[in-house]
């Protein structure tokens, strides 16, 4: 489903990604962990080309990405209907209701009729446990509710892959469970997902594999029982021990 080869990116002098190579099979859930500033979010954002990269190749959901693609490239728009993204700060559209947030992309990009888009949106609202908040505006919703709407919004495009960029980091602890529950449900339903997270227990429970990313490379890649419980690299060992102390 996803194949990354020798992906490199630099911000001026600083190398953010250094020749990252990895593959993800259909239905896998990858938890991406590692110290701050290691390149986790950048890798994720390169996968749907919210950020460009300097060298390497990405194949994702049947589309090839290469360095230097233009922002308005139709291939990128096709890509983004196949790859959904959920942000740390939700980024719901404040001028639209929950329902309209979800139906905007299907109606504008896929030219779905209002009726079809709204029927699908109401079903998704049910999945994320917010069937009764269709008419609410983002500022009337709690953070956890907003993030669940944001997940429904991404799912409305019927993507093959979902990217989650620290989806629970901006939430109070009691709100995180609802959001994690939704993500867990998606994993159970066979969605291919990459989740950047600091929740080790969550990573441990739902991930088929865990990537430890440090200084622009994947330092360790394996099932959680191996990577989290018995890390082989010094970087991973230090990272997990610091997390446990905290």
């Amino acid at each position, binding site marked *: 489903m996803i194949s990354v080869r020798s992906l490199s990116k630099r911000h001026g002098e600083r190398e953010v990604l250094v020749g990252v190579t990895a593959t993800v099979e259909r239905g896998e859930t990858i938890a991406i962990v590692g110290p701050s500033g290691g390149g986790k979010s950048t890798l994720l954002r390169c996968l749907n080309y919210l950020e460009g990269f300097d060298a390497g190749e990405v194949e994702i959901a049947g589309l090839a990405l290469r360095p230097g693609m233009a922002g308005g490239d139709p291939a990128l*728009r096709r890509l983004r209907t196949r790859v959904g993204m959920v942000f740390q700060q939700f*980024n719901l*559209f404040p001028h639209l209701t929950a329902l309209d947030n979800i139906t905007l*992309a299907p109606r504008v990009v896929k030219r779905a009729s209002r009726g079809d888009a709204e029927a699908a949106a109401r079903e998704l609202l049910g999945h994320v446990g917010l069937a009764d908040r269709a008419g609410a505006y983002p500022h009337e919703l709690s953070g956890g509710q907003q993030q669940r709407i944001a997940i429904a919004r*991404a799912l409305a495009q019927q993507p093959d892959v979902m990217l989650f960029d620290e989806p629970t980091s901006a939430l109070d602890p009691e709100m995180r469970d609802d959001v994690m529950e939704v993500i867990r449900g998606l994993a159970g339903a066979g969605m291919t997902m990459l989740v950047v997270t600091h929740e080790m227990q969550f990573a441990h429970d739902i991930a088929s594999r865990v990537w430890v990313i440090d200084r622009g490379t994947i330092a360790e890649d394996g099932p959680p029982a191996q990577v989290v419980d018995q890390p082989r690299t010094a970087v991973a060992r230090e990272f997990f021990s610091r997390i446990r102390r905290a």
Partner: protein
Amino acid sequence: MALVIAAGAASALIGGCGAGEPEHGGTLAAIRQRGEITWGGDVQGGEPYVYEDPDHPGQITGFEVDLMAAVARRLGVRARMVQYAWSNLVPSLERGDFDIIANGLEATADRRQRILLSDPYFVYAETLTVRTDSEVRSVFDLAGKRIGTLNQTYAYDILRMLYGDVAKVYEGNEEPYLDLELGRTDAVLLDNIIADRYGCTASHPRLKCLPYDVARGTYVMGIRKADPELKQALDGALAAMRRDGELARILGKYKLWDARQTEALPSEGNANLARGVDGDLVRQFVAAAWVTLMLSVLAFLLAVPVGAVLAVARVYGSAPVAGFARLYIELFRGTPVLLQLFVLYYGLAQVVNLGPVEAAVLGLGLNYGAYEAEVYRGALLAIPRGQSEASRALGLAPVQTLWHVLLPQALRLALPPMTNDFVSLLKDSSLVSVIAVIELTKRMTIAAVDMRSWLVPGLLCAALYLALSFPLSELARRLERRLARDQRPLAL
């Protein structure tokens, strides 16, 4: 005596504060004491009245300058000209800002009711100017025609008596003839001094002045009611100048001496045209307010899309596109809208012959577009980056992101400054009177002169502006409340 002068000076200072109409007697004695007579005039009246000497920049010259120097010499004092807007000369005289008026003041019956008038020093003739191919032979052929003139002139009064309130009213001497040549009017009625110098000249080969005097009138000096002895002294000086030929010499120097000066003096404009508040006046004001509202709404409807396109170009455009938008904004924001209106209406007349309303809407709209652009740019920049990222991540194209995500949010942020701009535009629309559109402010100044009072027309005008702007502010406030649900302020 010193006390009288001090009191006069003091009341001149406070006169503007509405202290009523002070009695300014004893001016002749004060003039002799000072050794100087001050006279009010307006350099804007131009050649040959009072104007800046082209050979000696900074010095004024003109037949009235020479006339006053001669009159002063005969009174044994010096003369000093004081610059005032022509339309304010009479109220300023009454307030005591200067001793007399000597600047193309026409002797009319209703002016005589208000101030003392000296004997005439010049006889002028109202002259009709038309295009060379025109059928018009006299002032009585003008029914249904478009006629240009200047406000507050005898010519304007004549046209009003004959045809009612139909004249197109200009501010400067040149513009009526420019529009006549361009076919925007059919005739111009003004006195022969202006017609000879600005109308039937080599620079207007397509215009001719009809040889018949439509009417004659006289220029006189204006003196305060309380100063009959000053009038007597001035009349004496003028009579002596007429006898010994000095008046003829001065007028001759400016090519103003003609047969009219020695013929029987014409009677004064007899109709008393001073008017009160009546249904017609209110109707005219309401019609003018409608013009103001229509101009403002149309101009704003143009300014909003122009501003939106410029803002998007400046924020998201490529370097040349953004540069062009910036150039446009700086150009239109950095030069006076008055100048832009002049260029549009008169400057480009040979290329595109715009009607006054079209020129006004276009000028105001293009100008305000530059201001709107900066408002929208600020609003676009205030939207968090996450919004366009989320939109792109959902597969929306750049244009779709702009239309569905960014512009609706920018609009909510821009609404308060847009309301501000619209109210400001409503008032700035008064500038279009320079291209002879009669809107609310222009109507007010015309009525003020007709009624010899600024108070009632001023209040009526202010009330109408408020009546226009307040409902619009209220509408915007409601729109804001509906749109900006999540932007209501928290308590501090």
